[in-house]
């Protein structure tokens, strides 16, 4: 078998593919964060909690109501998105006039409440969500056997990311979103219900997090803290991509997953920190991020 750096090529390709799966989650989560930050100026620290809520919604839906995976893929983001809209209407909208720090503190507190409550009710140990039958096979890629479900995660998240990008960049709704980012009062003076648009944006952003949560539920243990560590990496992704940049979040998310996978092969000890090393380097060279505008 051929080798690179004394490592079998098959192993490298395998880790890169698994990295792409992780990158898919980074992309979906950082996309939602970027949309929320870009339009509303809110640093949504509760993003990980909404991801966790999405996974729990799928799990509990299955256990108590017999909602299958495919229905959960639609219903959980809808339900969590609705929670997001309520949070925006009740709390967040009062903070827009203030320093962005207040939004960060509010969402941070919200994350603690959500995660603490889930911990209280369901305990610390995780529960597993069954892989749906139609996705339970294995894909032979010749250099590795990829579980079909992980291939599906890549496909589903790329489709969701591209769909979001398309809505924002190519539709009239997206034109309103971009206009609201630039000059919201004028947009409202044209007759657009900007407060509703903001609530819907927050709902849409956290629905993306919930979608990632549902997608993750068959590959991780569903537990109250599954979002906590992930959200830190995702914030680093958003900073590297450029705060508020849609394309930056998607590309950076996928790329960092791959880089992380590659690091696992050549220097496993660094795989947990490589994202933060890259963040530090990017901040030194391009403080606005790779895709950000100064």
């Amino acid at each position, binding site marked *: 078998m051929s080798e690179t750096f004394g490592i079998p090529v098959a192993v490298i390709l395998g880790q890169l593919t698994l990295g792409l799966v992780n990158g898919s989650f980074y992309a979906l989560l950082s996309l939602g964060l970027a949309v929320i930050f870009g339009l509303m100026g809110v640093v949504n620290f509760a993003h990980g909690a909404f991801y966790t809520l999405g996974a729990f919604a799928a799990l509990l839906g299955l256990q108590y109501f017999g909602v299958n995976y495919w229905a959960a893929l639609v219903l959980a983001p809808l339900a969590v998105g609705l929670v997001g809209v309520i949070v925006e209407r009740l709390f967040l909208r009062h903070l827009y006039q203030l320093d962005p720090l207040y939004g960060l503190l509010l969402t941070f507190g919200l994350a603690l409440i959500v995660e603490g409550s889930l911990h209280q009710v369901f305990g610390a140990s995780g529960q597993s969500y069954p892989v749906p039958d139609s996705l339970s096979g294995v894909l032979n890629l010749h250099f590795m056997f990829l579980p079909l479900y992980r291939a599906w995660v890549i496909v589903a998240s790329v489709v969701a990311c591209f769909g979001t990008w398309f809505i924002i960049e190519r539709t*009239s709704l997206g*034109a*309103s979103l*971009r*206009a609201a*980012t*630039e*000059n919201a*009062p*004028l*947009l*409202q*003076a*044209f*007759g*657009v*219900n*900007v*407060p509703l648009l903001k609530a819907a944006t927050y709902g849409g952003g956290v629905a993306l997090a919930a979608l990632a949560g549902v997608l993750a539920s068959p590959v991780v243990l569903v537990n109250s803290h599954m979002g906590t560590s992930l959200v830190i990496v995702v914030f680093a992704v958003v900073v590297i991509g450029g705060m508020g940049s849609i394309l930056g979040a998607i590309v950076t998310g996928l790329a960092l997953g791959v880089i992380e996978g590659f690091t696992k092969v050549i220097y496993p000890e660094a795989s947990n920190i490589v994202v933060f090393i890259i963040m530090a380097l990017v901040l030194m060279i391009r403080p606005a991020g790779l895709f950000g505008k100064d």
Partner: protein
Amino acid sequence: MSAALLRINALNAWYGESHVLHGVDVEVNEGEVVTLLGRNGAGRTTTLRSVLGLVGRRTGAVMINGRDAIGLSPHKIARLGVGYCPEERGIYSSLSTEENLLLPPLLGAHGMPLDEIYAMFPNLEKRRASRGTHLSGGEQQMLALARILRTGARLLLLDEISEGLAPVIVQALARTITALKEKGYTIVMVEQNFRFAAPLADRFYIMERGRIVEGFAASELQGRMSMLHEFLGV
């Protein structure tokens, strides 16, 4: 005389702590072109922004088409049929020319069709795919105007539309305003450029320190020139 489409009574407005309008009264009849004259900082732009609810706080009455707009959010005020062209033009840089044009939602059934708009402003059709802010100043002004004509708004609030434009463009704008007047639009203009505004307006108001100090019809213009010199330095 037809009914007042816009009636402003005892309007007070504040930006934060500073009280900028002090009991402004303005009446604009349907189909009229009314110009607010005055020095910079006299409160003319704030008057337009107050009509739309874009200031911090306001009291008094703003009646649009017989509906009291003082308690409404800006988007609900716009839906009473108001189109706004801000002083800085408000062209969105992240949107193409055509996206800018199609951005404001339709407010009434009688919006100007796109082909009519492109006939009136042919440059906008040629440059429909360009970024809004890549247009020349004159084109951006045309775009800002075209944008609100498409919506079917019948009351147009135009803030300094001739500012910073070449004379030939200003002449084209004057022809456009005349054409809109013939189509029955009601227009409130804030203007620094007296030569541009004088032949277009039916009536004038002069503002000074957040108050209306004088209001008169175009027919009285000749007799008021000395006063205009005093207030505007024209």
